[in-house]
């Protein structure tokens, strides 16, 4: 604890002691560490707030508590294995991470045009499901942080419906590693279309319920209206994208502006609000979920039988996955083929799985509109079987810089609302 004429830096320690020291001096400002373990800071986020009474005069953000060296680790694995790392960055938007990475790798390989149609439809399908799941968590944690636990339980309940479908498709609720360079890991399992149709029927009711809880709720309005205001020039200067930018009045969405995975073939609107405050961000996210439902429905109509992995034996893994008595694994047909049918097939399988494919030297940048904003992947290859350098431009990382602009001059309670409206996920921020 540091005590000066001007301020008291309460970086941990005994609060009784802090109060005693505060009373002993004439200092009126208090520097408070909120986090990194505070339950309302979206994981291990540390906010360093200078308080003058209830007013937050300075807000600084400390990050790095969840740095796991994903970008460095990827340099020691094959290009395909990279998917398993990136899915763990922003763990609420794993499928966006994977798709951004795979789009960059495919651009490096120059095979973007050869990705099968069905793989692209499946990618869009899982990304839009993922967008809804992420927005539900954003709303749920938001509600919890403002004290509305019903919103929290409802949000997580709704998200679980989506995760059930993602689990059916990919085998896992989170960290799917489902989107792979060249396509997706496996085709949709039987029965999933019916499940998604059920979801499409049920989900509008659930969204309506949540809107009934919050849209006109006087307490919610009081906590969110005109709070953490950030206008359009502010967003541009700070590099803010995604729902935050659209809540400041600019209809900018990479799905429309720079379509990827065939987004140009889908009909959907970009919800915009010019409120620029926490409430506008909430409204934009809710409206985006409805749009996502529309896209998911169109995906189901677009699904045509066909391959889900690129028809290039040098890139796409030869193995077809199948469900056996001991779980998911290589299909018995494939095992029979490589073990007793074709020596060349065995060698090919072995080389492709252990060594991986070579990616021509060069660099590429691919960006997707993740649930949180522009998620960019800068991939550099030296011509080898492993990435030379992969860098992710994570939207949460960029958006957290806006905390000072949003919070300074407001009350300390509004800091919570501001951070919640940014919806940062520290796994993505720190990588």
């Amino acid at each position, binding site marked *: 604890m540091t005590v000066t004429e001007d301020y008291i830096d309460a970086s941990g320690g005994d609060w009784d002691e802090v109060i005693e020291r505060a009373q002993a001096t004439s200092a009126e400002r208090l520097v408070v560490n909120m986090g990194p373990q505070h339950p309302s800071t979206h994981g291990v986020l540390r906010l360093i707030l200078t308080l003058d009474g209830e007013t937050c005069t300075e807000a600084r953000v400390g990050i790095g508590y969840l740095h796991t060296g994903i970008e460095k680790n990827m340099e020691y694995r094959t290009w395909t294995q990279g998917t398993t790392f990136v899915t763990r960055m922003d763990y609420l938007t794993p499928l966006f991470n994977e798709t951004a990475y795979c789009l960059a790798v495919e651009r490096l390989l120059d095979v973007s045009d050869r990705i099968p149609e069905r793989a692209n439809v499946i990618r869009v399908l899982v990304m839009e499901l993922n967008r809804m799941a992420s927005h539900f968590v954003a709303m749920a944690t938001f509600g919890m942080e403002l004290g509305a636990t019903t919103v929290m339980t409802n949000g997580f309940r709704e998200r679980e419906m989506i995760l059930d479908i993602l689990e059916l498709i990919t085998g896992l609720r989170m960290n799917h590693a489902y989107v792979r360079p060249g396509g997706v890991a496996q085709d949709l399992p039987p029965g999933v279309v019916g499940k998604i149709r059920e979801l499409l029927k049920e989900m509008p009711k659930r969204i309506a319920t949540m809107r009934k809880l919050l849209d006109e709720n006087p307490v919610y309005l009081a906590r969110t209206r005109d709070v953490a205001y950030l206008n359009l020039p502010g967003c541009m200067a700070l590099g803010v994208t995604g729902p935050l930018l659209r809540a400041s009045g600019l209809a900018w969405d990479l799905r429309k502006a720079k379509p990827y995975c065939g987004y140009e073939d889908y009909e959907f609107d970009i919800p915009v609000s010019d409120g620029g405050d926490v409430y506008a961000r909430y409204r934009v996210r809710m409206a985006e979920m409805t749009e996502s439902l529309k896209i998911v429905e169109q995906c189901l109509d677009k699904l045509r039988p066909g391959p889900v992995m690129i028809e290039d034996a040098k890139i796409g893994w030869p193995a077809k996955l199948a469900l056996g008595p001991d779980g998911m694994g290589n299909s018995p047909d494939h095992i029979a083929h490589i073990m007793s049918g074709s020596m060349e097939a065995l060698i090919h399988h072995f080389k492709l799985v252990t060594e991986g494919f070579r990616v021509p030297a060069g660099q590429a940048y691919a960006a997707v509109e993740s649930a949180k904003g*522009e998620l960019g992947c800068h991939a550099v290859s030296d011509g080898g079987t492993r990435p030379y350098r992969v860098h992710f431009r994570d939207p949460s990382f960029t958006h957290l810089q806006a905390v000072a602009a949003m919070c300074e001059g407001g009350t300390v309670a509004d800091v919570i609302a501001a951070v919640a409206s940014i919806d940062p996920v520290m796994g993505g921020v720190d990588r």
Partner: protein
Amino acid sequence: MSTENEANHNGDGAEAPENLPDRRGSERLAAPVVRTGMFGTTTTGDTSGYGGLRVRGSAPAASSRPFTDPEDPRTADFDRVADDLEAALGEGAGAVERIVVDRGEITFHVRRDALVEVARALRDDPALRYELCTGVSGVHFPDDTDRELHAVYHFRSITHNSQIRVETTCPDADPHVPSIVSVYPTNDWHERETWDFFGIVFDGHPGLTRIQMPDDWHGHPQRKDYPLGGIPVEYRGATVPPPDERRSYK
């Protein structure tokens, strides 16, 4: 074994100072490396012909006009952007050393002392209007003498729906690149991250401190000369070395 070793041991008993562990250890470390990797392959060790059949060239060093390829819609505005940037820079057009068009993306290689000027032109010139900078990414090429550290910027224009890359380099011996935070405030944290991981000093940054690694960390972890680290994992008596020491394909 080498005759030198035998010469050293000639006539010495087991307890001779030459055989003490620290002495032996330093001798082993001083011996020249004759092979690396667990199986001693210097090529891929590939006998199937799978990996070596196709030799690909490296990325193009520089492209020449026209940058727009009528066959490739991704390159549609490249000639216009190159012209507009040249016009916006005016006298300082020499700032752009070369332009590379590769895989539907355009890269302007810029001299580092002109970076801020280029960034300002990209943001302010009405014909360019790159409102959004999506950060800086460092890349370390230890073999690229005097240009070891690369700083790669991506700019996005919302007005013209265009996307470009600007790349600048600095030598390891003088790792300084001017900061563009004064032009694009969003680069504040991105430059801190690149300093943290690559050791590139962004001159003029308002507070260039580490952002992901602890404040008292030594070294810059994503440089190629920084080992991945990790510890051997033991399982039922067998030991798996850390990832960067395992047998691997280059």
